[in-house]
């Protein structure tokens, strides 16, 4: 009598639904998954170790590359930890700029998540729609920092520089007629704030577009309702944060519970789910995009009315003004010291976290008083989520696994670090 055995299957790392380099060893009973064993480390770049050998300022660009779809948020957590050490006073305008770009980043992340999740489930149009909007947001990144992705815009004590008064515009090329260029540049005539405002006006309609394609779609519902259910107690026990936790109905958001920057001054809601399945998490994230849009609008209104400094005047941490350096010896020395040796943090430990699009993203720094961290630990939200994959997929089919990977919004940059 032949014995019927489960078979193992290698899922990834080169798999279209592996979201980068996820490798799963699946134990399958026909189409049904009995065990999913995630293997990580294929994108390990030793960010934490590298940071030990660089000054704090030099480590900021590494943070962009952790979760490479929500760049500025990663910087934010790192910078907040440094500011906690130094008890730095951040100019309120800088705080508003940070919040605005945090929310732009949240939309960027959620758009990619939405596109990738829908593509995993087979709806490919949403993916391209989402990328259409991401393009505009990348333009904002570019206008403010010069880089479309890895911005390195946040600095301890503020942001690198104030928002630009003009937007970069498209130019005439061989393949682009004058009329097309005018159409492309229509919303780029004013400042960056005008451009973002124009985007926030358009964006709710875009979200409606995604929703018409998915929310009430029977197939989408059949594929997501009741898939990967996590009940609230389990979600907390598994260390889930962010939309994964809120999808299960736990009302937890650092922006409300431990307000940082100017979130306590802004009006927004925290959407939560009920069932804790893929569909609820989908709805939570869609709603979060709308809320982010609301926050951005409030920030724009405030930023228009209140010009001012965007980085601290403490020249021990932030570079002095160019003009000062021409006349003031001390400013010259500070400049030199800052860009060679960097600044020192007092001896001690500190942890600061932001509400990252994926959950709680925090950095924990142990300082021995030097100009670089003794140890840097990054708390990546995706890591506990991936750890829960086995529990979430048990008894589901192969196609559901793909939906669950999608709903977890996994990015390997942060998990492998």
């Amino acid at each position: 009598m032949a014995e019927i055995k489960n078979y193992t299957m290698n899922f990834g790392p080169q798999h279209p639904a592996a979201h980068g380099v996820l490798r799963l060893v699946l134990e399958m009973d026909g189409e049904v998954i009995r065990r999913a064993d995630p293997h990580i480390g294929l994108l390990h770049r030793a960010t934490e170790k590298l940071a030990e050998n660089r000054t704090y300022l030099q480590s900021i660009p590494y943070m962009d590359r952790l979760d490479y779809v929500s760049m500025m948020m990663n910087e934010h957590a790192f910078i907040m930890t440094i500011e906690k050490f130094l008890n730095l006073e951040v100019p309120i305008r800088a705080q508003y700029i940070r919040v605005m770009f945090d929310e732009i980043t949240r939309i960027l992340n959620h758009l990619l998540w939405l596109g990738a999740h829908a593509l995993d489930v087979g709806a490919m149009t949403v993916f391209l729609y989402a990328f259409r909007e991401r393009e505009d947001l990348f333009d904002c990144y570019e206008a403010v920092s010069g880089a479309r992705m890895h911005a390195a815009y946040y600095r301890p004590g503020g942001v690198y520089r104030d928002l630009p008064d003009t937007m970069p515009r498209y130019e005439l090329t061989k393949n682009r007629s004058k009329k097309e260029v005018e159409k492309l540049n229509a919303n780029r005539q004013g400042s960056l704030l005008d451009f973002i405002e124009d985007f926030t006006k358009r964006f709710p309609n875009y979200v409606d577009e995604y929703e018409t394609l998915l929310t009430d779609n029977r197939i989408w519902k059949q594929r997501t309702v009741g898939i990967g259910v996590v009940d609230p107690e389990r979600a907390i026990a598994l260390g889930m944060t962010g939309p994964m936790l809120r999808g299960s109905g736990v009302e937890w958001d650092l922006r409300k519970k431990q307000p940082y920057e100017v979130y306590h001054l802004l009006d927004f809601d925290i959407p939560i789910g009920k069932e804790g399945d893929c569909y609820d998490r989908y709805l939570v994230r869609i709603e979060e995009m709308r809320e982010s849009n609301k926050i951005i609008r409030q920030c724009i209104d405030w930023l228009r009315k209140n010009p001012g400094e965007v980085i601290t005047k403490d020249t021990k941490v932030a570079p002095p003004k160019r003009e000062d350096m021409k006349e003031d010896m001390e400013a010259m020395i500070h400049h030199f010291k800052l860009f060679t040796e960097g600044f020192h943090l007092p001896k001690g430990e500190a942890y600061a976290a932001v509400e990252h699009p994926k959950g709680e993203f925090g950095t924990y720094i142990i300082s021995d008083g030097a100009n670089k961290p003794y140890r840097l630990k990054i708390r990546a939200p995706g890591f506990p989520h991936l750890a829960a994959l086995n529990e979430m997929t048990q008894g589901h089919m192969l196609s559901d696994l793909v939906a669950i990977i999608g709903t977890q919004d996994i990015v390997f940059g942060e998990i492998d670090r």
Partner: protein
Amino acid sequence: MTTPWLDIIAESFWILLKILLIVIPLMISVAYLTFFERKVIGYMQGRIGPNRVGFHGLLQPIADALKLMFKEIITPNKSNKTLFFIAPILTIAPAFAAWAVIPFNAELVLADINAGLLYVLAMTSIAVYGVIIAGWASNSKYAFLGSLRSAAQIVSYEIAMGFTLVGVLMCANSLNLGDIVNGQQGGLLQWYIWPLFPLFIIYFISAVAETNRAPFDVAEGESEIVAGFHVEYSGMAFAVFFLAEYANMILVSMLAALMFLGGWLSPVSFIPDGILWLFLKVGFCLFFFLWFRATFPRYRYDQIMRLGWKVFIPITLIWIIFIGLMMQTPLKDMFH
């Protein structure tokens, strides 16, 4: 004594020529269907699709074909070599063979046989062997899963599709495709789509499932099992599967046009009938295939099975009985 020989040879050549006259335009339309698909889906998704090779990208399919021809066909080490190469042939042969009985207008048909519909059904059913053998011969778990999925799916939807065709032949009283079209003479309202509307919908959805197109493309399942049964195929071997898929799409659209939409008949009496009408209707059906692909997420394997067995088969059965009963009533003229 030599004349019968000459006759046979001449006739064989004549048939061969007719086959070529069908197959070559078919191949070209397959090539341009892929182009059309990329363009249509492109515009639906806010892109412009291929526009670099030739005028507005019109030479793109030629470039694709050339590329695939020059690519190496890689055979996996532990595959069954014979079956590995038989599989694509087994997939494309029925896809082309079924065209033998397709009438393009009242006279233009290669083989005017009376069991035409049955022949088409038989041919489309054979295609599943190609898929199963491809999955088996590849000796890959992904391919194997894909072929299992598609075997179950094609067999299930074959039944629903068969029942819808029963409805058509009840109306037409014939299995000959030419006669079926002629039964729909008399303008738009005489087409079988109206009395058989539920069957038409089911036929069309089953046709999408039969050809493994989105949202029923679990056999390929890009994001799940990568490419399903043809994951190990490259170069021309892959292209043959690709050709077969698109040839099948055109075939089922053609059948939909012939059986439900009046074939080459004109919808209104003041415009003459003609082959152009047939192509227009086929194009209309094909457009839906592309539209579906751009719109819908993919079904899960067991959901497809449920839809086929628990929804489509009962509905078709009920409608067939309904037609049968209606034919006994004074309203039978509605059903011809």
